[in-house]
């Protein structure tokens, strides 16, 4: 009886604490909603070309640590064609991406059975801006703004035609994530979102996820839009 009462008391305290934390986080949001953000949104059209090394794997996941240049993705205003041909304006210093799949699937997973997430990002732009993820920090007691990468690897679209070089087997990748700016450039102190629309390249076509997670090296190439206010 005493044990039951103690359990009930502990559960009650835990629930109160959780509600308190949630309310505090919400209070911060509600305060921010009562006035407009004064900053006008800054938008960018960019492109990355990254080389990656496998950094870990498990039965249903594999992660890669990527780095490489970021350049301007230009647009032809007559027909909207988007090309990754501009000058280098930054560098992905570190980006760890994690692919999680349904391990029970035979062959490569369906589009809806892949989750592409991000566990760390540092993107430095030439103007001194530094972009990192906008995620809740589990080490702090109050929840922060949490906009994790919600991405997918789209195996069902099939390999992209015309692959060559060390990573000829390329598959589409897509998704959006929250980012925050720091440093000394135009994006310092701003928050917003980054949306990718590109591809992952592998040394050969994998038969299944077990083979895919065995690849030591990959590449990631993508245009992306960046909007922060």
């Amino acid at each position, binding site marked *: 009886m005493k044990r039951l009462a103690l359990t009930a008391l502990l559960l009650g305290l835990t629930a109160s604490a959780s509600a308190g934390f949630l309310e505090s986080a*919400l209070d911060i949001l509600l305060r921010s909603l009562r006035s407009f953000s004064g900053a006008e949104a800054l*938008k960018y059209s960019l492109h990355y070309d990254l080389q990656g090394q496998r950094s870990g794997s498990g039965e249903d996941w594999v992660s890669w640590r990527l780095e490489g240049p970021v350049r301007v993705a230009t*647009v032809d205003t007559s027909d909207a064609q988007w090309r*990754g041909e501009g000058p280098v304006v930054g560098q992905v210093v570190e980006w760890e991406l994690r692919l999680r799949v349904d391990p029970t699937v035979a062959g490569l997973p369906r589009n809806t059975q892949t989750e592409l997430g991000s566990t760390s990002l540092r993107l430095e732009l030439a103007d001194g801006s530094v972009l990192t993820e906008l995620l809740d920090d589990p080490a702090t007691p109050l929840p922060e703004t949490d906009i994790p990468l919600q991405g997918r690897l789209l195996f*069902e679209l099939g390999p992209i035609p015309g*692959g060559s070089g060390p990573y000829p087997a390329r598959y589409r990748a897509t998704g959006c994530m929250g980012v925050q700016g720091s440093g000394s450039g135009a994006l310092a102190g701003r928050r917003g979102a980054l949306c990718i629309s590109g591809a992952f390249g592998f040394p050969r076509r994998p038969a299944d996820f077990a083979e895919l997670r065995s690849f030591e090296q990959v590449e990631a190439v993508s*245009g*992306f839009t960046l909007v922060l206010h």
Partner: protein
Amino acid sequence: MPLRLKRLARAGLYACLGLLVACSGSSSPPGGEGLRSLLIHFEVNATPQAPYVDLAAGEVFFRFEGDMVASAVDPATGQVTGKGSKSLGRFGPAVVGFRVNPARSPTSSDFLTFRCIDCSIHFADGALLRPLLPGDATIPAGEPLRSSAFDIPMQGHFLQNLGVLSPQTGGIGFGLRGVGCGGTQEVTGKGLLAGGRGTICMNGQFDFSSPSPAALAQVLAGFADGGDAAEVAALLQLLAGSLLTGRSDCAITVQGQRS
């Protein structure tokens, strides 16, 4: 090293990298060879769409339609400076559902999401983009390439957790950031995207004309202890009860058949 010297060194490094890349002569689409990519800018207005509101599902429905042009980008910096002047066609009609998830806090980007129910994009060059609809047995005339064995559902998120913005259209009300990616396919075999399959990703803003940010805050405050049906209904009413517009730069990237 003093900070200024560090910045100079970094700027020099990027300039050198820029020259190397320029010399490599790359002119491929942003996702690499074998892909066709567009970056468009759309500006759409919404009208209420039957069944208007589904209280049980926590969803409200709109029909969006408007103009689209190319995004204008500064080729030196990558900053999106505006939009092109030439119309590229018509964005929409796009039937979209906004869904409230009361199990998530408004501080989460999973609290208010959106999905594409039936979306069309009509390009002036004859291309027509439609959703990937597996098992669709009612393929309209003029969409011979439509059938698909798989789906890439739109995963759209409102970012109310980034705060409210001034409406881009001016006037009262408020703006909320909206982002998301989903599947698409070109179904007529015409134009730059002919027969391609791939994705569309928006990174923009929705503007709500009538309620004030304070009214939104008041409704969201009701979700502090988890929302009930009345609070979900109040939020849906707030969303549905105003004129709604949307603006976004939007990446469309496809692969495959070109006629």
